[in-house]
């Protein structure tokens, strides 16, 4: 039926059809498609298949097996590492949100161009400093002979250095520092798009500054909060350097186990299974996030 109508009003249809048909520029998609097919989709597919194989299919005949997943659940070590990974990810995200929001708000509401540029520099400079370097910085601050403990002992606040690192606390502090800039940059864009006049209107109707923020700006910036949180969570559950160096023997996360399987145990199949579990967790989160976001968007429309 659609084609009948199209034939009758041919000039219009020709135009719409021309719009629909890929243009010559469309061919430019191929380099990116090839790159992603060969170096992203295919490898991840292989990873997923390897997780269900008994060995390396190149070296010897293999069969399908669930034993890598059984192994994961058979030993408490692995579920506990998954739980520690998620816990560290969650607490890091929460801390990054609490520290990132005020700063993003300040940045979005800075009217002077110089103040804005300086704030942006302050946020981007740590980002450019590198994860290993920033972890090193936190080690010099938090270790027993580090800056904080030396100062505390010298001031007589404590006679014995506090255990600030080689535990989850130190890991979370350093991870928060590393990922706050991602949160700030995501949030600042969204808060910046919230019209300041809405807050002014609420204030002129008698709301206090805090009420106006809580009832107007905060709800409207919710998509940014979700996007930033998801980003920081995804980054922190895949962190390797920081938990390794800041966590010491106290902290064991899934990425550490994955690398251990590849480097010392040389069991890429089990590493694949661990990776797949991490992937499943992050995919579930992405989907849940999209659902929540769609729900929020729907609320706004109605």
């Amino acid at each position, binding site marked *: 039926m659609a084609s009948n109508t199209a034939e009758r009003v041919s000039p219009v249809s020709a135009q719409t059809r021309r719009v629909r048909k*890929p243009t010559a520029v469309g061919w430019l998609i191929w380099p990116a498609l090839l790159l992603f097919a060969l170096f992203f989709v295919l490898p991840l597919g292989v990873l997923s298949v390897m997780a269900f194989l008994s060995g390396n299919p190149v070296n010897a005949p293999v069969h399908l097996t669930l034993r890598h997943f059984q192994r994961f659940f058979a030993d408490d070590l692995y579920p506990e590492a998954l739980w520690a990974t998620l816990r560290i990810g969650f607490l890091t995200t929460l801390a990054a949100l609490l*520290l990132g929001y005020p700063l993003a708000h300040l940045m979005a509401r800075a009217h002077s161009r110089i103040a804005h540029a300086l704030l942006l520099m302050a946020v981007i400079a*740590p980002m450019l400093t590198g*994860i290993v370097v920033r972890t090193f*910085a936190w080690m010099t601050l938090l270790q027993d002979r580090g800056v904080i403990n030396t*100062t505390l002992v010298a001031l007589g606040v404590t006679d014995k250095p506090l255990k600030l690192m080689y535990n989850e606390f130190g890991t979370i502090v350093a991870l928060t520092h590393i990922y706050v800039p991602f949160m700030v940059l995501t949030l600042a*864009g969204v808060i910046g798009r919230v019209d300041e006049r809405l807050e002014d209107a609420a204030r002129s109707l008698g709301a206090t500054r805090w009420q106006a923020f809580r009832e107007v700006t905060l709800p409207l910036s919710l998509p940014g909060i979700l996007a930033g949180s998801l980003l920081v969570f*995804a980054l922190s559950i895949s962190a390797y*350097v920081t938990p390794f160096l800041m966590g010491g023997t106290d902290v064991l996360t899934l990425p550490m186990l994955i690398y251990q399987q590849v480097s010392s145990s040389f069991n890429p199949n089990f590493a694949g299974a661990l990776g797949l579990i991490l*992937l499943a967790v992050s995919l579930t989160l992405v989907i849940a996030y999209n659902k929540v976001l769609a729900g929020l968007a729907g609320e706004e429309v109605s």
Partner: protein
Amino acid sequence: MRAKVDLGAIAYFGCNGAILFFLLAPIAIVSVFAVNPTPYISFPPVGFTFAWFAKFFANPDFINALWLSLKVATAVLVLSMLIGATAALALVRGNLPGARLATALFMSPLMLPAILTGLALFQIYLLVGIGRPIWGLVMGHTVVAVPYVIRTTLAVLHNFDRRLEEAAAALGADPVRVFLEVTLPLIRPGVIAGGIFAFIVSFDQFPVSLFLVVPKGETLPVVLFNYMKFDLDGAIAAASMVSIALALTVVILLEWMIGLRAYLKL
């Protein structure tokens, strides 16, 4: 009433000041250890020395790694600018079916834990039997860096006034000339911004590199990490200062070329 408002403002700015201190102080402290002569990390500093910088630049492991990182990041910069800019053009101008799906695919490395990308590439290189060549590392970095270029270029293309191209065409320019003289200069800031981001992502890349480097052929972050597992001395601080100097050069270049403000729109 007046006092109350001021109190709120004090809390607001005080809070933000503390957060900025939290962000910047750890980086500043590294510079102290880079010039402090004690053989281990200790505070307060007791003197001033350039010995750690000398140690860093005299250590072939560090220097080779620095060169490798710079070479890989430069290759990634070029590749991701080419691939990213063409992909963004195709996505916006190509009228492709499934353009939304392709965009989601191209953005997905940002959401996927990078350690999985590294592991997956490690496994496929292992199965195919190519080992761990440098070009494999470059491709791995490019996959995680190219989303930034696509994103910045898409942002520019969406704000693009197509009448400029139409005007050029109406004045007799052929499509190639329109592209070279109108389209390209207009999307260049987005491509360059994304490219610089890609460079940084590659230069600081750890999870992907961890799986794809070979002994004696490691990138700087991996070498620093391995060193820090056993030693925590001023050489790391000196290496950090070198990295920070490189990073700051990039920030200043960025501000100078396109203005950092463009980043907030991404």
